[in-house]
């Protein structure tokens, strides 16, 4: 389904290939009732209880992804942010610095292009690109199919880089251990208040591009305070993927999480 006008042009691609269609439960045609009523007016209405969550299907698939990952000791992170916060650069630098210590693979989500997956592959790490077409977020089904192609090794780290969007990805559990929200200092420090769903859904906030703090009007203390107002348990790390400041703490955080996933797997 096209997200712009509902025209049915579903275009999500995994590694450039069309996603498998899930069999539709019903062809959505009218079904003649057992004893068809003479006319619509005579049809008797009744009430059917459903009581199911709108995200029930996604949540079921996410739980299956989580079980799959956990059985293999894979530490999976869902990275979310606005476009341009530096997620891909952060991933590239993290992969380079983890080389020889922890195998890393990546699922990249973007509306179009393979650019980000290519940047990841240039580091030697395997990457699968999901193109969501006009879609604005990854969902658990896309990630399940990407995992089949990627086949990440046991006891490894998996980064899922979501579509750059601070709104929609908040609602969709992918089966990750944590959502990590990346906020860069070239954005507004009030973003946690403007996009509270995402900051509430995350367990860790990375304040990126901190090397630019002397040149921009960004109050890092205030950004952290706003984020903790939305999510008092949020952990925060300040770093610069470009000049490397703060990277050791982030790498320690990753290694500790991977060690926990390993012992649990």
């Amino acid at each position, binding site marked *: 389904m096209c997200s712009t006008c509902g025209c049915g042009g579903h275009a999500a691609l995994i590694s450039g290939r069309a996603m498998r269609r899930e069999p539709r*439960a019903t062809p*959505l045609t*009218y*079904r003649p*009732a057992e004893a068809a009523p003479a006319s619509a007016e005579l*049809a008797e209405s009744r009430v059917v*209880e*459903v009581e199911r969550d*709108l995200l029930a299907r996604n949540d079921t698939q996410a739980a299956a992804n989580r079980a799959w990952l956990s059985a293999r000791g894979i530490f999976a992170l869902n990275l979310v942010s606005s476009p341009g916060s530096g997620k891909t650069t952060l991933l590239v630098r993290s992969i380079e610095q983890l080389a020889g210590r922890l195998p890393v693979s990546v699922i990249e989500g973007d509306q179009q292009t393979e650019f980000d997956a290519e940047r990841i592959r240039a580091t030697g790490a395997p990457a699968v690109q999901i193109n969501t077409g006009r879609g604005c977020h990854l969902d658990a089904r896309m990630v399940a199919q990407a995992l089949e192609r990627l086949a990440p090794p046991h006891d490894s780290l998996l980064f899922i880089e979501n579509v750059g969007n601070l709104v929609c990805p908040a609602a969709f559990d992918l089966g990750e251990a944590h959502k990590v929200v990346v906020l860069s200092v070239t954005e507004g420090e009030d973003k946690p208040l403007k996009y509270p769903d995402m900051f509430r859904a995350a367990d860790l906030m990375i304040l990126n591009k901190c090397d630019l703090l002397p040149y921009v009007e960004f109050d890092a203390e205030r950004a952290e305070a706003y984020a903790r107002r939305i999510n008092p348990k949020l952990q925060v790390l300040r770093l610069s993927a470009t000049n490397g400041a703060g990277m050791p703490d982030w790498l320690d955080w990753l290694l500790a999480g991977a060690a926990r996933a390993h012992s649990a797997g």
Partner: protein
Amino acid sequence: MHELSLAENVLQLITDAARNEGFSRVKTVQLEIGQLACVEPEALAFAFESVARGSLAESARLEIISTPGLGRCADCGQTVAMAVLYGLCPACGSAALQIVAGDRMRVKELEVE
């Protein structure tokens, strides 16, 4: 625009119910959307209209029950009304409010024939 995915999920839940309960037309869809749920009810209704076209729920009436947000303050223990996610506890000023109600998005019931 994730409202469109959510609308597709509503239709999927309806078609699942149609298979289990044996109905062929939906007159009313009753949804519970919490005040703190991450969906805009107006946008969801608009998206549903387009995804339901040609289905057994075409031109079904969408009834949205908006449940109020409630939070429990981790610091003073009070249960307080929460209209927004960045609210502060009116009793003690703490930001440590945990949502206890008002973040659900559910299909509650259908009027069918």
